């Protein structure tokens, strides 16, 4: 072997080690971050839930409330926070079962369990913003921020949490509009 081939082989070896290091680094970042699993609510999807519930408001993830809350809410859609949101019986049933199956108290995600535990068993809240978990997480948000035009109300999760519909409430992704 000439000196030239040796150098070439050496360079190739270095490149291999470099690639391997990067690959290990990336997979480590992908698999080792338990925090991400807590930040995100488990993925859940249903086409009717997506189209029906999101036509008037932010698509609220089922793990934001316990099963009893969803059942109560879905049985009173003719007066839904003051508005008529009546659905045909088939759609109503499908969405109710989807919400129930993925509710906070039926989820294994840490965040969902914390939400469920923050609600006393005697209570059936219909507003996510009335749960202790919510008020605790938002205690540093001044009244003025809630009233900003781009926010409007505590019901407008997506104003600050751009991936709220996907159950992503990662604090690092919060962008409060001016």
């Amino acid at each position, binding site marked *: 072997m000439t000196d030239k081939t040796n150098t070439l082989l050496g360079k190739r070896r270095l490149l291999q080690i470099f690639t391997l290091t990067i690959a290990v680094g990336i997979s480590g970042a992908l698999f080792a971050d338990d925090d991400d699993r807590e930040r995100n609510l488990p993925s859940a999807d249903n086409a009717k839930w997506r189209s029906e519930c*999101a*036509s*008037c*408001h*932010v698509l609220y993830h089922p793990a934001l409330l316990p099963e009893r809350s969803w059942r109560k809410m879905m049985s009173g859609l*003719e007066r839904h*926070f*003051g*508005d*008529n*949101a*009546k659905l045909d019986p088939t759609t109503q049933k499908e969405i109710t079962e989807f919400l129930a199956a993925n509710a906070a108290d039926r989820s294994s995600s840490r965040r969902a369990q914390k939400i469920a535990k923050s609600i006393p068993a005697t209570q059936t809240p219909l507003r996510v913003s009335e749960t202790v978990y919510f008020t605790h997480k938002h205690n540093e948000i001044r009244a003025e921020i809630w009233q900003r035009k781009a926010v*409007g*109300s505590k*019901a*407008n999760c997506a*104003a600050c949490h751009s991936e709220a519909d996907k159950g992503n409430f990662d604090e690092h992704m919060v962008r409060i509009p001016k």
Partner: protein
Amino acid sequence: MHRLIGSIALATGLGLAGAAWSAPTQDILRGYENEARQANAGFKPNAARGEAFFRSEHASIKGDGNKLSCAGCHTSDPRQSGMTRAHKRIEPLAPAANPARFSDAAKVEKWFGRNCQDVLERACTAAEKADLIQWLSTVR
């Protein structure tokens, strides 16, 4: 996707022809028109009545002094997008600005069903629905 391309092509074609009528919208309007004729044989959809209906204000049942109207959420210009009370965008009502409007009879009935109860506390009549669609379809 094909439907979307179809809608765009249709809207462009109709735009050139100078009208925002699509076949499904005409069918939906004719349906309400026929229904209204059963109560009033001489009924004809009237755009001016439709516009007045859209803008008319009604006292809220909550007794909070609020005035409710279609325009309250849809804005006074049906070519513009509106906003729900929960801050969600409402796509424009006028087919000229939103070709998907009044193209699905079940969807049209669902929203008349909900919104008439919210604003008027009663179902809308077929004549009111026909007048409104007549007006919205002529808005440019």
